[in-house]
């Protein structure tokens, strides 16, 4: 199936390094100097979100209060993307714009959880106690700050992007598939302009808990994802948000918008077996027609089997390519990781530092994806 050209016409990013393309381009150019929070969740480190002025993208305090950190990061990055695409003050286009968000769930109220667990230790009737405490202690609005689709809902409310939204869930793979299906819909003429991305808040103990259960968190001093498998492997989570405005070339031309990069059809596989991740990535690379000298932005997590497999696959596919591990710069942003890679790829292409960038995503548990972007003349 031949499709229409799909352009990236705007990007927004916020991470531990800051906001917008510039601090990320600086980090990509130099030796990796990650900004880590090592005390708050010891023995686990996280890449904490840089401080941002929320009001710049979320003007109403009431909206800010209705959101938890993951939603604010996403809404903020979405606003930056709309700004970058020149759409912030274009209510007509935003009202037609479709939205695909890659998201998990929101944070819990840690204090409430712990108080209830403490009480349950001695409660005579644990069931009744749980009911009573949840009913009195849960903030009614917290539910809306936790629901996966409410990042999209908040983007609609704050930015007026109301074409329609869909939220994809499912860790790293959903970020790839959000880009894949958005690209395919535009290429096939099912949509003209879309906002695609995701966000993740790593600075919360319940998120760390989920990964600690399976022993997947890195516990030692910072090391590159490529060096972690030799020491047992592990990932360091990062907070961030990343969004892209994707648009048919025709639509962009009609409104006089400059493209920053072209997004090729996105490839993904279920890839359920870690020992086959390398073969799966190789297959996706070949199907995508990626050049051997493309610049690679790897989403490698640092988890042993998959990271080693990706390292070996890339060495064979693109032995001379420059490979950056995005996780070394900003940590692992889970659902947001493929969109974040695509934003950085766009920045490199728009800055003429490369003609073709391949973003890889091999999930910590499953899912392989490849996002290929090329520069525009």
């Amino acid at each position, binding site marked *: 199936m031949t499709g229409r050209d799909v352009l990236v016409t705007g990007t927004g990013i916020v991470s531990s390094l800051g906001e917008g393309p510039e601090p990320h381009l600086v980090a990509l150019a130099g030796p990796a100097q990650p900004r880590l929070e090592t005390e708050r969740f010891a023995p*686990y480190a996280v890449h904490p979100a840089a401080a941002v002025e929320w009001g710049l993208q979320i003007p109403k305090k009431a909206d800010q209060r*209705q959101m938890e950190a993951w939603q604010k990061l996403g809404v903020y990055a979405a606003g930056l993307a709309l700004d970058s695409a020149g759409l912030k003050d274009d209510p007509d286009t935003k009202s037609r714009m479709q939205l695909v968000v890659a998201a*998990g*769930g929101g944070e*819990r109220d*840690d204090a409430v959880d*712990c108080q209830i*667990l*403490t009480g*349950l*230790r001695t409660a005579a009737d644990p069931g*009744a106690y*749980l*009911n*009573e405490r*949840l*009913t009195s202690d*849960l903030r*009614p609005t917290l*539910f809306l700050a936790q*629901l*996966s*689709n*409410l990042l*999209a*809902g*908040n983007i*609609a*409310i704050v930015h007026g*992007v*109301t*074409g*329609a*939204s869909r*939220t*994809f*869930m*499912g860790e790293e*793979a*959903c970020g*790839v598939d959000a880009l894949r*299906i958005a690209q*395919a*819909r535009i290429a*096939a003429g099912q949509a003209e302009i879309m906002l695609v991305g995701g966000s993740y808040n790593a600075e919360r*103990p*319940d998120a*760390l*808990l*989920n990964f*600690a259960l*399976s*022993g*997947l968190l890195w516990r030692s001093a910072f090391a590159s994802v490529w060096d972690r498998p030799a020491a047992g492997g592990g990932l360091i989570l990062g907070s961030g948000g990343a969004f892209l405005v994707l648009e048919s070339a025709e639509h962009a031309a009609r409104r006089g918008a400059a493209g920053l990069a072209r997004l090729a059809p996105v490839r*993904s596989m*279920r890839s*359920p077996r870690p020992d086959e991740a390398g073969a799966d990535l190789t297959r996706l690379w070949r199907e995508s027609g990626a050049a051997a000298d493309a610049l690679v932005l790897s989403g490698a997590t640092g988890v042993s089997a998959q990271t080693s497999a990706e390292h070996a696959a890339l060495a064979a596919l693109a032995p001379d390519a420059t490979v950056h591990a995005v996780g070394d710069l900003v940590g692992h942003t889970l659902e947001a990781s493929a969109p974040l890679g695509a934003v950085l790829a766009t920045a490199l292409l728009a800055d003429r530092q490369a003609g073709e960038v391949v973003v890889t995503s091999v999930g910590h*548990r*499953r*899912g392989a994806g490849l996002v290929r972007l090329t520069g525009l003349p």
Partner: protein
Amino acid sequence: MAATSTVDHQGRPLVAVTGLGLVTSLGRGQAENWGALTAGRSGIHAVTRFPTDGLRTRIAGTVDFVAAEPFCAPALAERLAELAAEEAVEQAALGRPGDFPGALFMAVPPVEVEWTQRRALAEAVPPGGGGEVTYAELLSAAATGRFHDWHDLFSFGTVADRIADRFGTVGSPISLSTACSSGATAVQLGVEAIRRGEVEAALCIGTDGSVNPESLIRFSLLSALSTQNDPPDAAAKPFAKNRDGFVMGEGAAALVLESAAAARARGARILGYVLGCGERGDGFHRTRSSPDGAPIVAAIRGAIADAGLRSDDIDYVNAHGTGTPENDKMEALGLMTVLGERMREVPISSNKSMIGHTLTAAGAVEAVVSLLTIAHGRLPPTINYAVPDPAIPLDVVPNVARDHRVRHVLSNSFGFGGQNTCLLIGAEPA
């Protein structure tokens, strides 16, 4: 357009339905559910799964006849989805067992570690200073490795991955949420993929097994649930003046979608067609619709236009019909705006009056019921309709099923976060 055409009014591949699967609190399979739905029977009952002491709402349409181990929302959601998909794939007779030649689009409920697991973690380590539980302790308990499997159990992509594995679907499975319209969005994604020519078939599933203390309390705190616990089967009262909220339900539904060309080529029995999909966001409020109903109107109009039909072609509406004061009023307003005076005569009924609101699954459940409605030429009623609401002057098929030839069903789904999705399902191509 003749029933032999394989493309729609826009020249896109026509999308046929060749398999259906359904499980709700009313039973397992199309036959059990259809029998109960047309008998006007309710599947809503007192919750026995957990203690309900002190709760304002103590009823739900839980599915208690399906086991899941360890018992938690994702495990039950997976098992319900598996049952529905088995029935749908068997009816479609497409592919070989474990080798479904199409993509998987799956509406799954958000998951997180539940209280049973959280308590187990808290009890796995000795209490710290003062006996206060802290997340640091929970993290230590997690680090013992004794609860290793829970990471995957409570990961968002796991349910769909396991279903993909079980049925052998093609490609990266999609797990999605558009809140209470998720099931309809799963169908819409399947329709779009077939129209793009990317796949010839899709397995579209909506599933939900989330009735647990915290999720029930969360909805209760938003004042969304009916509190009329006694008798349970009378609590869900869509469109009635005395409606006071929805009742949570559980269930799953699966649809096998195929390009009509592929279905006809293999001689498959076509059960109906998904002719059109419409959707629209709403930036008015996190839980409330725009007061003018414009997004709902746009979604309904979008589905009709996508199908290449006119509003006059709709002869039955499978309502979102949650039974909350707000939803039913806005849904009626939206329909009256699009269909005009004629809407007073177009029958509309709410399956949720009997099975409750199956949340993530609802859009898929109701799409399946819409296809059964077409197949049987009979409208399931809206039960518990005793007090008409003058503000909703509609034929809600009150209390008793009715024979009625149906060619085109509009199935509505609306959700928190401004999600509005409508499907137009037909007996024949438009």
